[in-house]
């Protein structure tokens, strides 16, 4: 009986595959079937352990003998490449699908390029699922160290969804060439002793070790590298579907990390004194807002916020450190001893204080209570940085062409970093909006000095003020 008669008689064949992922075996059978002219719907392919008993399993188990002069089937390299991947898919239909495409390719050799064809798309989908599983095994497999008489030994338990174990052996031997390890799966196992690879039987989860002390560190890392302010569960699930979680030690943390994320973000935000409000746009609004400010501990002391004073639009802005005892009581800047000293020197160089906007780097009086006295305390860098928000609000409304910062705190409020007064004084520093910053000592510093030192510092202070006065004239 010839092959052609087979078809005419409606004969069908059962082709049992000995291995689920052996492309060579499938290729040999398929080639023979094509040469014997057996159409796809006349073959039932079965795999070991696969479901049996459909109509076709009663078919002819002998492979047909092709005609001696039958032509060899021809396929493109591209088909071969995809088929080698598709063969690893767990769908029992894969052998039949590949055969159907092979069959159709004989009359339409470039069918493989038609991405819109149903069979070609099905093949592409299967290949993609297999490649993904191969990739996920490389990514999500976790080794655990076990006791072994010869020293370090690592065992992994992984549950692949397709027949990819053998395909992935090369990757793990290349990567962990000088380690000894076993990979156990429900579909078989691999064992590497540093020199040779051995295939073993299927395993169960009970055969695999349950823990490794390093996992505690890994989980610590996983929980810490996660940024709770950016919760994107969908993005995580897309790449790391739940089906892989059960064998990943870090995945058990996910529910609590997700549940705790909002609280952690809220804590981050409040600890950061982040503010969602807009910057006030009038001096009155700033005044009102600073009285309610409790962004730093100074605002919590028994004191009153002191607003800067002077005309909006003043060409000169003078910045001091913070209100003192007198300023706090009167609610006005520079009215105490240092303020009075400042007034004297400003007058000497011909600067009209009333035409300037006078304010402080920090808006509240920081002090410690000693009996009935409130002793001045310098603000910390952090507190200056927090209060910079308000000084900048004032500056953006007043828009002075020139800013005079008196003392290190004021300079920090303007520049965002600590500078040395000695190095910075006596020359203009350009600010980002094009205005000029001049730095000098704080007048209270002069008050603390005596004798020659005081004379010298007073001279330098006047020199700075004179330079500022000259610049003001030039800018006007």
């Amino acid at each position, binding site marked *: 009986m010839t092959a052609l008669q087979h078809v005419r008689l409606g004969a069908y064949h059962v082709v049992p595959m000995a291995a689920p992922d052996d492309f060579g075996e499938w290729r040999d059978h398929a080639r023979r079937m094509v040469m014997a002219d057996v159409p796809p719907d006349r073959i039932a392919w079965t795999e070991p352990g696969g479901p049996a008993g459909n109509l076709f399993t009663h078919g002819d188990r002998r492979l047909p003998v092709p005609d001696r002069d039958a032509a060899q089937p021809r396929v493109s390299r591209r088909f071969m490449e995809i088929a080698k991947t598709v063969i690893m898919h767990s769908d029992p239909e894969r052998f039949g699908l590949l055969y159907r495409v092979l069959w159709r390719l004989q009359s339409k050799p*470039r069918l493989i390029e*038609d*991405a*819109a*064809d149903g069979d070609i798309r099905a093949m592409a989908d299967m290949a993609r699922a297999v490649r993904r599983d191969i990739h996920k095994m490389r*990514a*999500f497999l*976790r*080794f*655990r*160290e076990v006791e072994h008489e010869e020293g370090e030994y*690592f065992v992994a338990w992984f549950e692949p969804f397709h027949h990819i174990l053998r395909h992935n052996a090369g*990757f793990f*031997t*290349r*990567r962990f*060439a*000088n*380690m000894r390890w076993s990979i156990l799966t429900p579909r078989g196992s691999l064992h590497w002793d540093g020199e040779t690879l051995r295939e073993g039987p299927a395993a169960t989860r009970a055969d695999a070790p349950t823990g*490794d002390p*390093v*996992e*505690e*560190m*890994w989980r*610590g*890392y*996983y*929980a*810490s*590298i*996660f*940024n709770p*302010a*950016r919760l*994107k569960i969908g*993005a*995580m699930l897309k*790449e*790391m579907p739940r089906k892989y979680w059960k064998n*990943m030690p870090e*995945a058990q943390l996910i529910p609590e*990390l997700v549940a705790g*994320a909002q609280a952690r973000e809220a*804590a*981050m*935000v409040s*600890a*950061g*004194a*982040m503010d969602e409000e807009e*910057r006030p746009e009038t001096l009155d609004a700033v005044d009102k807002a600073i009285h309610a400010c409790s*962004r730093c501990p100074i605002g919590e002391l028994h004191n009153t916020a002191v607003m800067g004073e002077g005309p909006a639009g003043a060409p000169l802005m003078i910045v001091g450190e913070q209100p003192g005892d007198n300023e706090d009581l009167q609610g006005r800047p520079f009215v105490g001893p240092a303020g009075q000293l400042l007034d004297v020197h400003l007058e000497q160089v011909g600067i009209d204080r009333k035409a300037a906007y006078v304010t402080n780097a920090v808006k509240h009086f920081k002090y410690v209570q000693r009996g009935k006295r409130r002793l001045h305390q310098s603000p910390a860098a952090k507190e200056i*940085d*927090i209060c910079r*928000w308000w000084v900048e609000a004032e500056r953006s409304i007043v828009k002075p062409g020139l800013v005079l910062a008196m003392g290190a705190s004021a300079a920090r409020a303007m*520049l*965002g*970093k600590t500078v040395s007064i000695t190095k910075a004084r006596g020359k203009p520093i350009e600010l*980002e909006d094009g205005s000029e910053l001049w730095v000098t000592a704080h007048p209270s510093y002069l008050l603390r000095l005596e004798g020659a030192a005081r004379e010298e510092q007073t001279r330098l202070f006047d020199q700075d003020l004179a330079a500022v006065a000259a610049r003001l004239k030039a800018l006007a």
Partner: protein
Amino acid sequence: MIQKTIIERLKVLADAAKYDASCASSGTNKRDSRGGKGIGSTEGMGICHAYAPDGRCISLLKLLLTNHCIFDCHYCVNRKSSNVERARFTPQEVADLTISFYKRNYIEGLFLSSGIIRNSDHTMEQLVETARILREEHDFRGYIHLKTIPEADAEIVRRAGLYADRVSINVELPTVAGLVRLAPDKNAQTIDGAMGTMNDAITEARDAKKRFRHAPRYAPAGQSTQMIVGADGASDADIVNRASALYGQHRLRRVYYSAFSPIPDASAVLPLRRPPLIREHRLYQSDWLMRFYGYSPGEVAQAAGADGMLPLDIDPKLAWALKFRESFPVDVNRAPKEALLRVPGLGTRGVGQILSARRHRTLRLDDIAKLTVSVAKLRPFIVTADWRPVTLTDRADLKALVAPDAGRQLDLFAA
């Protein structure tokens, strides 16, 4: 003071590293551990070993050597004036930790950065030493990414490239004014100079490799950078232009964008509204348009509004298409690849499949539906054998027709 345990320090120093956007482990040369004493391999493509609930991939052990820092950059949680818990690792400890994680297949390698301790040179020495221990003592052949310190001596920075697959130098902020204001200890010229020097070293080593087989490999995965988005006033157009200049000038492999994130103990110089995370996403999309879809930086800027900001409710490709409706519809059966790549909703893979399928059949709307995710979004912009949009591209409400449900999308990403 009682020294913290390794795990306590790991938590502090990983937490400090979580604001860094990069975790790529791809693009380096192929190698494996056969014939050596150690472990590790790279096969071109990086592997993401886990994903965190923030949706980001974990490929490398991303750590700071220390979060002590003498710098005072306002957007940075580790700045000098911040009150965060501090910790430090020795180079040996980081190398050992990397190896024990790698052996368990948790990671592809190490991404090491550091706060500046003592001075920039000392810090850079420590980073390089960690990589040296890994490569020379452990014969580690996995991936190493070192963040380099622009202010450090050029010779030490150069040595980083001998051990690392990738080096990165953060430009920090998209504008010089932003840098001056928010990173007062950093200097734009120094950063630019360091990138240029690194680019020269990479190019030189590539040339040497062509002539001498045994020339040492040098940062085979090139250099990348990161900029903070939303901490200064830079618009999306500014950022895209800056990124494009960096790609061109210093041949960067990647520019990462990191949406300014609320950080514990933040400086009050940053009392800005946190930029929506979706803005960062739109910038990555625009980056993609330039690298894979043939858009010029100018065209990306055209997709932005008058204020230079990309729309948040729709992706930049769709925004561009809505502005330049005269470029549509595109005939999927005839149009060149470049035109197909401009169709909103068509990715590079979809375009490839259309090009290959149309050699065999005249494509109908049905066929396109099989090859793409959503044909509804495509329909107004394409012509097929059985479909021609008549007035769709002229309709004023086109955006509403094709844009995803804006409210829902923002809900998902914003937070």
